[in-house]
């Protein structure tokens, strides 16, 4: 186990090509300079970080991969390739049939340095915050997918990201690049055993090439003692589309700070989320949709529920540059408060500099609807059963928009189980 210092950064980057070594060194400087974020900063408001990096250490050997199969693997009977990343190290790879470059970033770097240079460690800026800096300073490995121009790959790629070692910090990096006019789908699952107290700082960088279509499904099901502070940065080129679905179920604290840049004219992003907190979980989402090109379109649609004493946060920013005329941008965030001790924050923001746009946002918060419950009970369903059906329906509106329907079905069954468990324990 290694503490996070210059030596650890150098070890992680021992095989770096020059361009990556330079990015790593710059990030290490920011890591040393930056303080831990505080809830006095607007973008960290409502979140209390009760740990420091000193509480965790990097592992040189990944822990033993665990195989709690909760249905995701079964829902993907055929993949275009799959891999496993444990404690930040790629431990198993099936690279698929070679139609795309796919596998361990570390293993592929030496032979693909020029291919990776424009994309790897280029997403979330290292000076964004101490976690982003730490990521680039200490990340040693991860997954990379580069889909060549024109390739249309139907089956999804599957990336199984795990934390397995108690007390470990890990920085898995996932870089997904679609070439011009290509199509690909990627499913990323995060998980850890409940007794593993780990800190995971994943970075997702998506480079969506001109006229390409990328679907990404993220299933966050960390164990109850794992903390995850993740960043996602996407750049969407001309006439390209990104379809992103995130299901947030696990972790003690899970934060996803996301920025999608609709850089190219005619580019679009469809972002769907379903998150469900229980006990003392905190689920924290900070989304920015940045319209830069002409004729760009975005839709953010997130549904969250909280029960027990959990807390959820969604802040959604739509930023439309002066040049981004003819933009269509919408965001919707609906929240169910299922227990008196639970809370949700929902903060929609708009920053519009162009004058010819269509833009809208909606945010709601409240308990289950009494009229709907009365209606269902009048059909003979008892109250707990009516409530279960209403919770199911609430999330179904988001999950039916997910990129991979088979994954959405699994998430639906987890949500149903999670609510039912809270009913049986009297938390709702």
């Amino acid at each position, binding site marked *: 186990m290694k503490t996070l210092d210059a030596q650890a950064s150098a070890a992680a980057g021992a095989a770096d090509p020059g361009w990556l070594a330079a990015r790593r060194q710059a990030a290490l400087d920011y890591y040393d300079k930056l303080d831990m974020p505080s809830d006095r900063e607007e973008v960290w408001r409502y979140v209390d970080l009760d740990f420091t990096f000193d509480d965790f250490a990097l592992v040189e050997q990944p822990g033993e991969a665990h195989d709690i199969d909760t249905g995701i693997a079964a829902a993907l009977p055929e993949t275009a390739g799959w891999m496993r990343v444990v404690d930040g190290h790629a431990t198993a790879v099936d690279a698929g049939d070679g139609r795309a470059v796919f596998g361990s970033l570390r293993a592929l770097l030496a032979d693909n340095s020029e291919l990776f240079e424009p994309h790897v460690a280029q997403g979330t800026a290292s000076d964004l915050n101490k976690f982003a800096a730490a990521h680039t300073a200490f990340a040693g490995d991860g997954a990379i997918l580069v889909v060549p121009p024109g390739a249309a790959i139907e089956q999804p790629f599957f990336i199984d990201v795990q934390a397995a070692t108690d007390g470990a910090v890990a920085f898995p990096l996932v870089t997904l690049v679609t070439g011009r006019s290509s199509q690909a789908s990627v499913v990323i699952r995060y998980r850890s055993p409940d007794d593993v107290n780990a800190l995971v700082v994943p970075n997702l960088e998506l480079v969506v090439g001109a006229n390409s279509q990328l679907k990404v499904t993220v299933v966050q099901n960390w164990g109850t003692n794992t903390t995850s502070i993740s960043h996602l940065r996407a750049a969407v080129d001309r006439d390209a589309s990104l379809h992103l679905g995130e299901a947030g179920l696990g972790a003690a604290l899970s934060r996803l700070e996301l920025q999608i840049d609709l850089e190219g004219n005619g580019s679009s992003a469809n972002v769907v989320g379903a998150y469900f907190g229980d006990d003392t979980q905190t689920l924290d989402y900070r989304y920015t949709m940045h319209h830069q090109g002409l004729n760009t379109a975005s839709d953010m649609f997130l549904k969250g529920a909280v029960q027990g004493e959990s807390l959820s946060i969604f802040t959604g920013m739509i930023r439309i540059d002066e040049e981004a005329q003819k933009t269509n941008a919408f965001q919707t965030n609906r929240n169910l408060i299922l227990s008196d001790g639970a809370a949700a924050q929902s903060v929609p923001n708009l920053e519009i500099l162009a004058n010819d746009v269509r833009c809208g946002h909606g945010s709601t918060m409240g308990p289950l609807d009494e*009229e*709907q419950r*009365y*209606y*269902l*009970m*009048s*059909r*003979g*369903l*008892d*109250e707990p*059963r*009516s409530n279960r*059906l*209403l919770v*199911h*329906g*609430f*999330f*179904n*509106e988001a999950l*039916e928009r997910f990129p991979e329907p088979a994954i959405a079905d699994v998430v639906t069954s987890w949500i149903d189980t999670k609510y039912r468990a809270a009913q049986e324990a009297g938390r709702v």
Partner: protein
Amino acid sequence: MSLALQVSGVRASFGDLEILKGVDIDVPFGEVHVLMGPNGSGKSTLCHVLMGKDEYDASGSALVGGTEVMGLPVDERARAGLFEAFQYPVEVPGVSLNDLLREMGEVRQDPGFDSRVESAAETLDMERFRERAVNGGLSGGEKKRSEMFQMAVAGPKVAILDEIDSGLDIDAVREVAHLVEELRSDDLGVLIITHYSRILRYMNPDKIHVMVEGEVVRTGGPEMASELEASGYVDIAGNEATVPKPAVTPFDI
């Protein structure tokens, strides 16, 4: 003849407002009755009180096929054989009609349930609505048809159809009336609530009850329909002063 529904001395108030002042209505099995009255007379309140909506203080007795339902939770009343077709069927986003039907089947544990679903779906031409959200984006007529479908599937002893003809054009009213006649059976008593007599042109009710100011003031045969159409509720009540003009109507009671 045994009674599907026997309502005796039902009273209800909403806050300080007394809405039902002792209602008695009997509906035998095999019959279709109509409860009429002006807006504000308490018809819909009676419907909700019988179904068990908890916003009223209610008392009295209501036997469904001989089982007392007053005091029971809403779902137990439904399972005792009471069905309410809503005046304004509620949209339940994300829950498909099939999801709801599956749950209705599970709570009933009735071996004939699934076959009733299939046959009623065909008879009522509901197949295309089954994967859509309950009442989501349906027209007024489609919502009423969906209510009739759920009624046929639930197999109740008593069906109360609240303002079943409201918000419908004349073709849809005729269609709903025909559906009610089709669903008429010896195992079912139907109480239709309406304040228009027009639906009576297309069906053959056994009895008409007229409610004014929270009381049933008159009960008679189907011939009362034409009398009502000609002269309205004032003469039926026999006393102009009893026709209410409530100062406060927070909703259509």
